[in-house]
């Protein structure tokens, strides 16, 4: 098993990459909404993504984050 520092150092870059992809996805949506002047008819999937970010930013549950997200993402 890796030690705590190894976990951070080993997986930092790939998580940086995934965060940037997520940020780009949210920006992409905003740009298209601004360009077309209207939101998507159904924003449920986007709302779940935003809820997922709240789960990730919190640290209050005993349930692992992945399990919480899988439950949440299964709702759409």
């Amino acid at each position: 098993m890796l030690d705590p520092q190894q976990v951070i150092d080993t997986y930092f870059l790939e998580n940086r990459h995934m965060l940037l992809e997520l940020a780009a996805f949210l920006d992409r949506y905003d740009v298209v909404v601004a360009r077309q002047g209207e939101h998507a008819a159904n924003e449920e999937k986007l709302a779940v993504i935003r809820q997922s970010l709240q789960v990730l930013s919190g640290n209050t549950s005993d349930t692992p984050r992945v399990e919480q997200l899988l439950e949440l993402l299964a709702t759409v």
Partner: protein
Amino acid sequence: MQIIQPHYHAIARTAQDYERMAMSGVVAVAEPAFWAGFDRRYPETFIDYFRQISEFEPTRAAQYGIRHFCWVAVNPKEAENPGLTREVLKHFPEFLSQPTCLGVGETGLHKSTANECDALAAHVELAMQHDQLVLIHTPHLADKADGTRRVLDVLAGLNVNPERIWIDHVEEQTIRPCLDAGYWVGMTLYPVTKCSPKRAVDMIEKYGTERILVNSSADWGPSDPFTLQECILEYRRRGYSVQNAIELFHNNPCRFLGQNPKFDICPIRIESIEKELV
């Protein structure tokens, strides 16, 4: 579709990559001088490397019908050795006269030290004296924004023609000042550490296609030449035509690299043929 890969470190890749690139429509690659993964000690090591990319590598690419061009430079990571840089620069003219050498690159910055800035200025000045194109590397990750500003500062102090300079590895936080200053910019696609194909298309949608190059670099590290094709797929998936894609992924490299007459591949346009009557 015909594709030009404007930044590709072929000597770090296999013949199978050439074969697969040829099968996917790549007609030409341009190979900037690169870091070897360790700091070279001797000018002669660079000279043999320049011979490899200007004489040997074109023969390897030709086996797959791909044109191979190159650039020469002391990589920014090795610019901390000013004496070595000066010695290597003395040999540039003999390589700049080679039939497939397009200019000076990739010079640029890595940690943006004083020695790196001096080496960048020396490379650019030499290129301008010899009427050459310039390809400039900008730093990665945490050093990106500051390093790109330093590159622009160095260039602002020199007598350069921005249209003949390509600032590479731009990302969302650095693309605008480079375009606003009149330079060409390159978006380099890597699986993890640089720009992604989707983000590149986002930037293309925001800034347009003028003075923009897309490449996948591809070296001996975690990289993939086919991130370029992935980007083309993403671009097409968003509804842009094949001609639009050709403009960006074939014709734009022709427009920039073609400023050097040695790069003789011309922009192309798809033409419809009237339905033939049997």
